[in-house]
């Protein structure tokens, strides 16, 4: 065990921090509005041009070959600096690991640099009205016709779906097959004729998602990722990423905990019960951090992330809710008021989705019980 930062990590951290300070774009619009989306895309390009978009990727695709520790440091600095969030997150965190694992050389060369630069912003098209946490219930059909698949069906809860350039979907290419069989992972251009998208407002009315309707939409079979009929296995690998390290790095929660701490420090006559809640959330952000550094050490030794990723999903999603709910309580009667200084309210609404998406926390707890602890399935 050595928790001192080696000099090259210190240098990396300082460089990262300095760059973020120097290039902070200030407050930009919400990525769930048309204008804000393009502002966020422009920010992605700024990051990319400076090499800070995808630091953990190989340099050939726009990264700088960071190791895991550097990536964790980068994430800590990124979120602490208060620069805008990443409109590219679906692509970079969820799709990219799958492309690295399963993509052809052509797919990697085409998609990865464009994803890194913000030219392609990706949305996820997995859920359907009847298939939420249970992906095996997917019904959207994709039937091969020459070199193309013809898609019919409906997707929903596509985050970033209203403005994204591409959507990574799971579709049913073998309508005879049941449950997990006959699914295929397919990359779909947003401008595909026959595909319509309709924004869905989240709780506060902002269009955080979209529904997609496929009516004989034609998508080239070149855009299959990982082989026809392999969709389940390919998707599960990405689900590991979604729940694991890459989607919710500790930096995000440490930054939120620090903002919460600062909020509390400015309250006069702070209620000792609220102080206690703030401290609890602050400690948990640290716990998430050190749990992650422990996992990073294992990964750097060659281990893989297994079902214990589900523990992290439960932990960060409930921590995120706790952080934001505590902040609103600290604000008292003004907590419910939406105004420019109250990012906590927006963050609270976002945090509420955490225990639901990427597999509900109920399902994650089942996974922890059955696959980590080994309890009998039935």
């Amino acid at each position: 065990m050595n928790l001192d930062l080696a000099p090259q990590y210190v240098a990396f951290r300082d460089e990262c921090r300095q760059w973020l300070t120097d290039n902070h774009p200030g407050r930009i619009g919400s990525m769930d509005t048309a204008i804000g989306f393009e502002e966020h895309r422009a920010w992605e390009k700024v990051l990319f041009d400076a090499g800070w978009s995808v630091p953990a990727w190989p340099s050939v695709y726009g990264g700088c070959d960071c190791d895991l520790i550097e990536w964790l440091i980068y994430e800590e600095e990124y979120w602490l600096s208060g620069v805008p969030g990443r409109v590219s997150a679906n692509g970079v965190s969820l799709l990219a690991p799958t492309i690295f694992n399963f993509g052809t050389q052509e797919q990697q060369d085409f998609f990865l640099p464009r994803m890194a630069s913000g030219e392609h912003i990706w949305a996820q098209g997995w859920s359907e009205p009847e298939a939420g946490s249970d992906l095996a219930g997917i019904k959207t059909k994709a039937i091969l016709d020459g070199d193309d698949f013809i898609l019919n069906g409906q997707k929903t809860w596509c985050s970033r779906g209203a403005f994204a350039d591409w959507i990574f979907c799971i579709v049913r290419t073998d309508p005879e097959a049941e449950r997990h069989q006959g699914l295929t992972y397919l990359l779909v251009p947003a401008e595909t004729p026959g595909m319509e998208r309709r924004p869905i407002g989240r709780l506060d009315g902002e269009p955080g998602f979209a529904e997609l309707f496929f009516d004989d939409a034609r998508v080239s079979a070149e855009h299959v990722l990982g082989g026809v009929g392999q969709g389940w296995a390919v998707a599960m690998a990405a689900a590991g990423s979604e729940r694991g390290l890459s989607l919710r790095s500790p930096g995000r929660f440490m930054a939120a905990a620090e903002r919460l701490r600062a909020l509390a420090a400015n309250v006069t006559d702070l209620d000792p019960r609220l102080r206690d809640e703030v401290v609890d959330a602050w400690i948990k952000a640290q716990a998430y951090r050190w749990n992650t550094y422990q996992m990073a050490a294992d990964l750097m030794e060659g281990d893989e992330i297994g079902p214990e990723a589900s523990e992290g999903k439960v932990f960060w999603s409930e921590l995120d809710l706790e952080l934001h709910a505590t902040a609103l309580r600290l604000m008292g009667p003004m907590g419910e008021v939406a105004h420019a200084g109250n990012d906590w309210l927006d963050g609270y609404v976002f945090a509420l989705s955490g225990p639901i998406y990427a597999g509900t926390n109920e399902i994650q707890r089942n996974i922890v019980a059955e696959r980590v602890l080994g309890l009998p399935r039935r």
Partner: protein
Amino acid sequence: MKFSFTDEQNMFRETVRELFADRCPPDAVRQSWDNDDGRVPGLWAALAEMGVLAVLAPEAAGGLGMNEVDLVRILEEAGYAGVPEPLVEHVAVAVPALAEAGHAALEAAIAGDSTITLNLSGEVIVGAAADAVVHRHGDTLQLVTEWQADEAASIDQSRRLGVLTDITAADPLDGADPDLAFDRAALGTAAQCIGVARRLLEATVEYVAERHQFGKPVGSYQAVKHHLANVKIALDFAAPLVYRAAWSVAHDDDPAARGRDVSMAKAQASEAVDLAARQALQCHGAIGYTFEYDLQLWLKRAWTLAAAHGDVRFHRDRVAAAIGI
């Protein structure tokens, strides 16, 4: 000692429930958000017609001469229906305060010709488009008739908020007790919380019985069952405290005992509605998280009402003081 409502009280409640179901369905609530005044057209007049606005006004003044025990389940129904009007403020607090002060504004208030809201603890007023504000000024109440306020957008579109910046005309309400007014506001809000929690629970039970995942109803999973059982238990042990507090406000002359009972009610009702909202959203999953689906009406009401007129901590502190710790 008989802890139950009379047939008349139950019937009154049923009538109001039907009125709300008819005149204030979710679509009407949504439409109110786009209205200038944030109101449901015709609802206030219908409530006046039915006598709801006059429950706490004495018969001599043209009211029903009833008390908080008669009112409490009516306000619960307002929560259940998600009524986007400052009903608690007007009916449970302003009307009896005007009556106690013998103020001439009472007549219009019970006739439904005016809407009166509150500013008892500062900062934010609800129903910013109201005609007057019952305002706490030191140890007295005033009826503010002219004022300036900055608009403030609540997460809950049904709450038109304003932050009071200036008062330019006000009448004293001598004879009206600000502490009693606060207890009435907290009691009424607690009752609304119970109604909101009931609606959230009902909607969720219905949804999880229908929605299937992994080949069976979501509601057949033990985790979901226990989430909702916990909500039911929280509700069934909060509601009696609210009814008991209604009795205290109506009949107990000791302000300390009254305050203690109201605070017990609001603390538990806030906790119950908070849990109900949390589990309703979790058990619905993504659909409950959308603007289009009606669950959001009650989710937002839950978040705001749980904190309004004193949150759990505030009311626990009042109980602590009342019981000497």
